[in-house]
């Protein structure tokens, strides 16, 4: 699994976004940060809570100059039907049918042939600045991901459970 400091593997994949099938390329994303979250499958019961969770907070991520993309091994048609089932998703759901992107990020579960619940945040240079993964049966926290995005954008030392308004750590230090 990629860790902070590693360069992010590029992608150019078919995706479903705003009710249609399109293409999404990392190279064409211009936002300051990119949030890529891998999830196991469409048409499941934990994944939709995450997919809709990120969709419900999309405005907050956009306000933080952060593009969001979901990735699973399902194809773009499946993503399209799944997004409709969930009432519409405003960010791209990338199709990674053979799991090559998940493998490139080191989060492919070979036993179940799906991606782990892994989250990556990429900086302007498209290096990984944050990575985490959850077991397949436990959903991740959208609000915690948003908190980390906000903390990263400050460029300051942020103590534990830092949220906007809380004092930063000492300046002039790396950690």
């Amino acid at each position, binding site marked *: 699994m990629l860790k902070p400091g590693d360069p992010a593997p590029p992608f150019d994949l078919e995706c479903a976004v705003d009710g249609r099938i399109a293409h999404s390329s990392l190279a064409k994303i211009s936002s300051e940060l990119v949030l890529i979250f891998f999830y196991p499958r469409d048409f499941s*019961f934990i994944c939709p809570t995450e997919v809709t969770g990120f969709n419900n907070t999309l405005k907050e991520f956009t306000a933080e100059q952060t593009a969001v993309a979901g990735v699973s091994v399902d194809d773009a048609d499946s993503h399209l039907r799944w997004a409709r089932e969930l009432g519409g998703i405003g960010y791209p759901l990338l199709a990674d049918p053979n799991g090559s992107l998940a493998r490139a990020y080191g989060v492919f579960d070979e036993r179940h042939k799906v991606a782990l619940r892994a989250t990556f945040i990429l900086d302007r240079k498209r290096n990984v600045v944050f990575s985490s993964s959850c077991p397949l049966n436990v959903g991740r926290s959208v609000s915690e991901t948003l908190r980390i995005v906000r903390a990263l954008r400050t460029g300051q030392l942020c103590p534990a459970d830092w949220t906007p308004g809380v004092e930063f750590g000492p300046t002039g230090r790396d950690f």
Partner: protein
Amino acid sequence: MASVDPAEKKRLFERLSSVREIVFGVQDGALTTAGVLCGLSGAVSQHSQVALAALASTAAGALSMAAGAYLGTRAETEVLRAELARVRVDAAAQPYTVQEGLLDELCKEGLSREAAYRVVRLLSAAPKALASTAEAKMFGLSGPTLGRPALDGVVMGVAFLVGALVPLLPYLLITVPRYDLGGALAATALTLFGVGYFEGWLAHRNDRWRSGVRFLAIAMSAAAVGYLIGLAISPLGATAG
């Protein structure tokens, strides 16, 4: 196409769940009693003494088999109930896990992921339906899986008694030496064949005769092997004596 009444079919399946006890009991009762008659006839000369000993063996055997079936089913049921209770607690605590597990099982049975998702979502509207379907599909546990200890015990005991009467009645009724034992063995063989044939009939098989012959062959082979083992170890008894 013949109409199928699900309630009638359910009752039939519940009745059929006793087939194991009936087949086991009849086979064991007939074979054990025939064995006792054969063994005692060689050692005791008086017909009435052999009959009395076989009657005593039958009574003890029926009670033992009934108790064994009752205790066995009870132990199995208690273990399954405990597991089921644990599964239900887990399901209440982690409903997503149950939904995902059921979805996977339905996909394995041929439904597309999307169709399976819709089925599970519909079931999720009724937690009881979701739980019972998940228990059946994911763990193979359902109402009929949980046995009825008292019924199993009674059925096993009665089946053993019926099976034991098969060799016993000809032996009691025929008082001519050798013919008594011959009659008992012939009745036993005929009954064992009949049980196999009946089993084939219940299973709607076309080759019911083969089913009867197979049952007879297996039961008689077991008896023959037992007899040969007895012959092989008999010198040990002579040495010890």
